[in-house]
């Protein structure tokens, strides 16, 4: 008697009939036998052995290339920015940062003869990310492959160019900086958030950060480009390191002031766009080479 079982959406299947038909496929069975044997005889492998951690190397297949490791640091009152680590702002108030992420894009090397070469189209820098399982896990560096030679400057944009900003976030794989998985896409504005800084501040002076603040800059006009003077003489297979840094206090108390206890948020409202403007201006001004 054949074994019969049914699904709601499948016709009844008589397994015996199918099995008889399938028995004829000798060649396939030989392959399967080999597979089964390989499974049985592979049992000596130590399955508990962990794979090595993934490494993101530079593209060593590139011809005549050398490499640059670009790293971005952030400080709060001069100390390394850390998830919810308390620091004093310019007005002496306790501040805790919970989110500091941003796009760096359109990175160019400028050669001694003023030729510009794009070396990176976009990266997403995460110092602390409140939404992560581990907010303190940062992603602040990336490799770029460049042609060997002499360079005098690096140009980059904090934010995205209009074409990147008009991208469909679902057209990218999840590990791409512009993927929707980064949580940077503004659904209602069909655009990306460029810089996201959030935290809480003690407004009463009792030592308890009692008010939350959050600023998400965006729209094409919030992108800021800056050129950094940097001499790089790169021979074949050289690896240079370029370190940038910026200071949280300078983002709120730079050339332009934004008191987070008073102006607590900006999330895309055009009526208060000047807040995003001040954040954008101060951020790019604060960003410098170490």
């Amino acid at each position, binding site marked *: 008697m054949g074994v019969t079982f*049914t699904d709601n959406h499948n016709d009844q299947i008589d*397994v015996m009939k199918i099995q008889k038909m399938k028995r004829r496929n000798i060649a396939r069975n030989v392959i*399967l036998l080999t597979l089964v044997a390989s499974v049985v005889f592979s049992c000596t492998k130590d399955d508990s052995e962990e794979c090595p951690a993934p490494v993101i190397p530079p593209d060593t297949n590139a011809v005549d290339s050398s490499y640059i490791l670009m790293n971005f640091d952030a400080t709060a009152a001069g100390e390394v920015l850390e*998830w919810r680590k308390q620091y004093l702002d310019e007005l002496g108030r306790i501040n805790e940062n919970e989110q500091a992420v941003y796009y760096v894009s359109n990175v160019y090397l400028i050669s001694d003869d003023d030729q510009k070469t794009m070396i990176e189209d976009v990266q997403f820098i995460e110092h602390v990310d409140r939404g992560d399982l581990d907010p303190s896990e940062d992603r602040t560096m990336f490799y770029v492959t460049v042609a060997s030679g002499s360079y005098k400057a690096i140009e980059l944009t904090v934010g995205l160019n209009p074409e990147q900003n008009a991208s469909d976030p*679902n057209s990218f794989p999840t590990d791409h900086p512009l993927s*929707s*998985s980064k949580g940077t896409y503004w*659904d209602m504005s069909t655009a990306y958030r460029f810089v996201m800084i*959030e935290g809480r501040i003690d407004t009463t002076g009792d030592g308890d950060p009692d008010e939350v603040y*959050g600023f998400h800059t965006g729209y094409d006009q919030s992108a800021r480009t800056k050129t950094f003077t940097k001499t790089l003489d790169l021979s074949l297979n050289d690896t240079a390191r370029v370190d940038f840094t910026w200071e949280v206090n300078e983002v709120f108390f730079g050339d332009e002031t934004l008191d987070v206890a008073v102006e607590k948020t900006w999330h895309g409202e055009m009526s208060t766009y000047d807040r995003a403007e001040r954040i954008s201006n101060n951020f790019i001004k604060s960003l410098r080479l170490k």
Partner: protein
Amino acid sequence: MRYFLLSILSLLLVFSGCRRDECDNCPPAIDPTDTLVYDPTPVNLNERLPSYLPRMDIPSDNPTTEEGIRFGRHLFYEPLLSADGTQSCGSCHNQAWGFTDNGNAVSVGIDGIAGDRNSMQIINAGLRRSFFWDGRSESLEIQALEPINNPIEMHDTWPNVADKLNEVEEYQVMNFEAFGTITIDSNTVTKAIAQFERSLISGNSKYDRWKMDPIKYPMTPDELAGRQLFFRDREDDGNGNVIISGADCFHCHGDITDFTDNRFHNNGLDIFSKDPGLLAVTGKEEDRGRFKTPTLRNIAVTAPFMHDGRFPNLDSVINFYSEGLQPAPNIDPLMKNVGIGGVRLTDDEKRQLKAFLLTLTDEEFNNNPDYGPPTPVVAGQP
């Protein structure tokens, strides 16, 4: 049946260490695969998703196949997975309730012990990056391991469950067709269930249809007004006087990522959360009361709400975000209006917001026969 039994017998001989050179009286070895063909049919689940949703990352070691989904569906509704044979995954994840627990605030396991968390929806699960309210599992496959052993859920052991399933030859056939081996174990069971869960795709709500073609599928003025509130921040003059009204739902429930940011937030339910939430995973006190953002899809049928099911209906949820926020010391910075209790919606605005939320119901998903219980393969199963 004869070939099948011979296959089982031969496998037993192989695994009992009977080698030809040691055993002259052994029967001739019969390849268990002689009677079956392992030729699974690949399934591209991403083709079933609306174009504006992210694509699923399918694990390379568990590609989706028709056979895997079919086996996983049977297992999802299989009470043999519980120690006393009374509960399946589907017991607490009922399709008609958006794959939640039949309106219960928390679920009760086979021993009559109530858990402390609300049963999460299983909707577009392939788009999630972590599972459980505290995110302690990083994949559907890992997630599926836990309820079997959990003493307040199915309270069994994996070896015992595997033994029970291996006694059902129809399941061994399905296991072979899906994974190329007749031996069922925790690995194949969780992989199959994960495949079935990934296939539970919702993308045909009223809102989805409007998004694809707003002329052909218009929303009502209330629904559109609710959508505007959903995607807008509240702004006031600093003294609590509203300048622009908004419900500010989008920060955590933005639609481009399927009405969840797949992240963790303390949304101000309690000043001190007794449930540690993400703290249980990270060990950091600042993560107390931080929970994964659930999708809002099918929210009309997934009540009650929040990690502990404290809110019985949508009205109570909207009232909470409007006036009921508690100033938890680690409340999320996105809960900007905690100082005035919430986003302070008017009654009309609450009604509009609710109208929009109700457009997220996907009746096709809730009634899809492919997602419901299959005809059981074991007599006596529900």
